Structures are given as structure tokens and as C-alpha cells.
């Protein structure tokens, strides 16, 4: 679900890349990570097996920049495509605002595509969403292979509700950005419909009118890209032989960070055990000192009495 945070002046949206195993979902994210303007993408985090198959999810934060005074960010996820990881797919799909279904165009893969699409519909339904009403874009990947289904065959088998579709060769970066642009547009369009005053203009062209390039013109507002970046490369391992968490590339610091909250005054509602202990010590010291002083005074009084 889209999160609108007026305190941070941020809009956060979640896009999930779905599809059968080895259809190119992670490759799509890798291309976005490599080709998107440096400061606007964060770390690409992959929870993958030794064989580089996605185990839980890949995650890439993308900062679109300022949109009407709000920092607009996309959290892009992929799911593991293999059939037996359905429980993790369902978890990643939770709260998705838009979906890219990456289908494998290679002849012989249609059954896997259909099964995965059916699974997507079922999992969306479990989250209370209908596939025909969810912002979704189909990407027909691997179009460079020699033996592929025709676009008509792909459309007939997979796109019964006339969702926007794109041809792609994700490995070469072809079709990756138009797909992402289109789904991002659909997500922001839905957001605009639900949260902006009625007179606000549409974000994307009407559904089905643009299906090949995802392009649209007529930019009327100023969009600014983030300007500061911290370039780091980090690789970490969980230590388990089956799971590897990889993180690489540049981190957006200026746009990603929430303001640090620091307190100037001590809280008064609760007293901590340490402080309580300290206060008890002070009282004990006071009582002991008073007792000693009283004893000394009594002794002095006795001495004075003897003298007199």
C-alpha cells in the first residue's frame, strides 16, 4: 500500500516483479540498478542461493525525485519464481501497489507462464486484490531468442484483460525502462485518483492506448533528481552455505534519510532503574549522615553536662 508521509514529505510505493523461474525478473532489477541515474538508486539487495537463484526477494529502492513537493520513492521487489516458493512469493506481494509480470517468450515455456500468472491472481486475491483492477504491466522477455512465441500468441494466452505489454531483452537492457516507467505511471495514476483533488490531471495515457514504448510527453512541472550520492560497494554473507545476501553499488543518502530526532530535555514520565538506584543511594547517604551528626551532638551534650 502506498504510504504518504507528510512529515518526511515522502510518497512510498511498492512494485513487485512477478513471473516464472528464470524469466528475467532479477535481470530487470540489475539493469535498472546499473542504468538508472547514480544518485537515484540505492543498494541492490539480493537474498539468493549459491546458484544465484532468488531465495526470498531482491530489493532495489528507486527515488523518482520531487513530485508536487513530495519525494516520490519506489521500493522494487522481485519474487522467487520457482513453484515451491509460493509462501515467500505471497509475503513479498503483500502491500504491492503495482506488478510487472515477466513472461518467458521461449517456446515451450507457456505452461510455466500461465501457471505463474494464475498463481499471481490467486495470491493477489488472498491480499484482497483483483488482478484486473491492480496496476499491472506484462513484459514479454527474451525476444532475442531464435525460437519464441509471437506477440499475438503471448497476448492471447496471458493478457485477457488487455493490460499494457512490452517486448524486452532484459539481458541487453532493452524494454526494461519502458516497462518500469509504465507500471510506475499506473501506480502514481491510481494514487492521484485517490488522494489528489478531482481536477488533478492524469499521470498516464488512458489504459491500452500506449503499449509499446510507454512514453508520454507534456511535462508541465519541474522534476528534480537527487544531487548527492555516496558511492560504496559492500558485500556481505550470512555464513550459511545456502543463502547469500549481496549488496552492491551506490547509496542515496540525501533522499533516503529521515531527519534525526534528538532530545534536549530529559523525559519526566518514567524513572529508569539506574536513576532510581542513584536516588536511593543519595537518600541512604543522607540518613546515615544525619544519624552520625545526631550521635555526635548527643555526645557533645553529655560532655557539656559533665563539665557543668
Amino acid at each position, binding site marked *: 500500500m502506498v504510504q504518504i508521509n*507528510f512529515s518526511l514529505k515522502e510518497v512510498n510505493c511498492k512494485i513487485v516483479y512477478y513471473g516464472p523461474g528464470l524469466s528475467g525478473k532479477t535481470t530487470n532489477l540489475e539493469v535498472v540498478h546499473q542504468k538508472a541515474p547514480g544518485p537515484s538508486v540505492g543498494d541492490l539487495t539480493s537474498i539468493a542461493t549459491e546458484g544465484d537463484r532468488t531465495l526470498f526477494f531482491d530489493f532495489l*529502492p528507486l527515488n523518482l525525485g520531487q513530485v*508536487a513537493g513530495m519525494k516520490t520513492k519506489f521500493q522494487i521487489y522481485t519474487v522467487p519464481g520457482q513453484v515451491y516458493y509460493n509462501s515467500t512469493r505471497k509475503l513479498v506481494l503483500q502491500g504491492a501497489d503495482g506488478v510487472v509480470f515477466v513472461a518467458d517468450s521461449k517456446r515451450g515455456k507457456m505452461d510455466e507462464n500461465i501457471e505463474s500468472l494464475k498463481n499471481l491472481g490467486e495470491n493477489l486475491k488472498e491480499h484482497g486484490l483483483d488482478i484486473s483492477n491492480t496496476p499491472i504491466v506484462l513484459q514479454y522477455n527474451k525476444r532475442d531468442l531464435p525460437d519464441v512465441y509471437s506477440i499475438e500468441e503471448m497476448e492471447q494466452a496471458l493478457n485477457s484483460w488487455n493490460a499494457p505489454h512490452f517486448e524486452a531483452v532484459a539481458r541487453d537492457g532493452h524494454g526494461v*525502462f519502458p516497462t518500469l516507467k509504465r507500471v510506475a505511471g499506473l501506480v502514481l495514476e491510481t494514487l492521484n485518483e485517490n488522494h489528489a483533488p478531482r481536477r488533478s490531471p492524469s499521470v498516464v495515457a488512458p489504459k491500452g492506448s500506449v503499449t509499446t514504448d510507454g512514453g508520454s510527453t507534456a511535462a508541465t512541472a519541474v522534476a528534480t533528481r537527487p544531487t548527492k550520492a555516496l558511492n560504496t560497494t559492500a558485500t556481505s554473507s550470512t555464513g550459511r552455505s545456502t543463502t547469500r545476501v549481496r549488496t552492491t553499488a551506490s547509496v542515496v543518502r540525501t533522499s533516503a534519510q*529521515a531527519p534525526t*530526532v534528538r532530545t534536549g530535555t530529559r523525559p519526566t514520565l518514567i524513572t529508569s532503574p539506574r536513576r532510581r538506584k542513584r536516588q536511593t543511594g543519595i537518600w541512604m547517604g543522607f540518613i546515615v549522615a544525619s544519624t552520625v551528626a545526631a550521635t555526635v551532638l548527643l555526645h557533645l551534650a553529655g560532655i557539656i553536662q559533665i563539665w557543668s
Partner: protein
Amino acid sequence: MVTDSDHLRNQRIVFYSEDIERIDAILSEFLELSGSKCNLLIDKEGHMVTSCGDTDSIDEQSVAALVAGSYAATREMAKLLGEDEFSVLFHQGKRDSIQLSMVGDRTILATVFDDKTTVGMVRLYARTACEKMEEIFEDIARKPKRSGTLDAEFGSSAKGALDFFFTE
């Protein structure tokens, strides 16, 4: 007629500055009392809500996504064991540790701390902080929904930003 789908869509989380200020005050108090390094409040989808403390060395967005994923996976494990969910998770490291506490049913409080404090202290004060934040979330839920929360120019501005960003 409002369908289930519409209902879920209308549940989009909107945080207003005045609410975040109240949450920040609680987090700051918790930070000082518990002696933790930083606190991140994250929603179940992995989006950051707010944070406090020393977050300079942390990639907040990635941590938020992984925390949400970790929590979701653990919840499924809990269900398999016949529990609704595990309300507190704890990951111990050599230097830093992290405790995750559920706040209401939508947000997770991630507390990063080192050996300057103890897990007992963090757990003790996290419980109080979570209860206070839950009250705020209940308060937010009771408020009437505001319409037209985004700027009227959002549509055209988004279109421009997408064209600008995806210029190849």
C-alpha cells in the same frame, strides 16, 4: 458498492506531521531511557515511517525492507506453530544487536543497540513505548479521513518526473 479490493486500497497509510511529531517524542524518550543507538519505525510493507538516533551508518531503506521481510517470514513460522505471531524478535550480533517489536498491527519498531545497554533495558522500555504508539495509531484511525491530501498538481508533476527520469 465498495469491494474488498477498494476497501484495501482505501487503507493506504497517510501520516501527518502532527502525528509523526507525537511518535518522534515517544521514540526520543525511548532512545534515552533504553540507551539504544537508534530506532526505526517501519510499516509492514517495508516503508520507513520515522526514525531517531544515530542512523548515519545505516542504509535505512534496505534495513526497512529486510526488517519487514524478516518479520513477515517469522509470522508465517509462528502460524505453523499455532501462534498468531511472535510479537518480539531479537537478532544478536558481536557488536550491535537489533530488536523488533510489533506496534499495533501495521508497524514494526526496530531498535539497534550495542553493549552500552542491555537487552533487558531495551525490552522493558520498548514495551512502554509500543503501548504509547499504539494509542497514537488508534487515535489516528479514529480521525475522519481527509480527502485530497496530495497537491492538485500531483498528476502533471508525476508525469513530468517520469518523463524526466526515464529519458534514455
